[in-house]
């Protein structure tokens, strides 16, 4: 039972990461891509970590996975923010796609 649930979450996680990558390739400008990357990937990573925690079943591993997820979250938000500020300083956002 636990394995089935873990498998479902793992697949969902992979789907979200895949979605984030497709978004990054397809979306027109920097800001949209940042959205896709930060949101989708983080969610995907959460799901994968949860499924792994379920599979491992030990508290120490779960806490480690949680820590990994938090770090990834922190890193991606700050870098997304900096990239956005940097590209806005260089080219202000206009209505039409670049």
């Amino acid at each position, binding site marked *: 039972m636990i394995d089935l649930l873990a498998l479902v979450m793992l697949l969902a996680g992979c789907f979200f990461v895949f979605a984030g990558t497709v978004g990054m390739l397809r979306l027109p400008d920097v800001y949209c891509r940042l959205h896709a990357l930060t949101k989708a990937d983080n969610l995907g990573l959460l799901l994968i970590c949860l499924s792994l925690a379920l599979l491992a079943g030990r508290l120490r591993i779960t806490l480690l996975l949680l820590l990994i997820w938090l*770090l990834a979250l*922190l*890193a991606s938000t*700050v870098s997304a*923010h*900096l990239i956005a*500020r*940097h590209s806005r*300083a260089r080219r202000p956002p206009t209505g039409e796609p670049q």
Partner: protein
Amino acid sequence: MNAQIVVDIALGLILVGLAAQVALGRHLFRSIVFYVAFGLAMAVIWARLGAADLALADAAIGAGLTGALMMVAFRRLVGIDPEQAQAQMTRHSHVAVAVAALTAGLVATVGLAALTMARAPESAGMQVLARLEETGLGNPVTGVLLVFRGFDTLIEMAVLLTAFVGSRVMTQRSRLNVTTISGFELPLVRTLVAVILPLAVLIAMHLLWIGADQPGGAFQAGAVLAGSGVLLLLTGTLLPAPRSNAMARLALVAGVAALSLLVLVPLSQGRPPLAFLGKGSLLFAEAAMMVSVAVSLTLLFAGAPALKAGRQ
């Protein structure tokens, strides 16, 4: 069984794909970024092969720091002469393709032949595992690095020191470079530093401590610290200082000095050099090496003899 193969083939393809991007890419900066990705893929493969120490090292040093060093070097080139820095000087020649294919074929045949050849029954690795418990260490790689082949590690730390002193020949002739990124004074960035710095130090200590029994050790810990050092430089908490100070120089020399002690102390007691002096001495040496690795790589990134605190 075939699931293993599929994963291996996938990993192999990813690795070669990234390598192709690095080698054949048109823009230089893209190649550098792909090189970092290549380093990470390499780390995954080390993990897949069961060489955990190497995975850690390659991720931290191979991908992380080498990538950082290359990017900062690239940024300096652009700073000097933007158009020349990315000058497209690759000349495509069919001879090169032919030679490359030939060498690849040669290496492949040699590798495959080596895989299937008869092996000597007794290898140094087996002896290491057999005699590991004499050293009280759990992790065989650290055993080899520090106890059985300690002299290699000493010379390797000397190579790192030479690289730093050698780079001082170049960097002392030119003015210090700015290493901070735009927008480094943002509160958001300051919180990032406030969170990551202590965590990085904690992880480094953890890696150093468990290095004796599980994958980890001085180099990996040093690399993590160097990574945080790079972060501090980028965010302006630390700035390159023009004049070197005694502390920086001592830290640089610590690793080689500690290992030299491990050689000279047993010699003074009449025992062969690098004779095993107990686990405590190993930890002491590893700590010193960690400090040396961290400080050297950070200073190499900064291109400066020492660092000073940036304005808070």
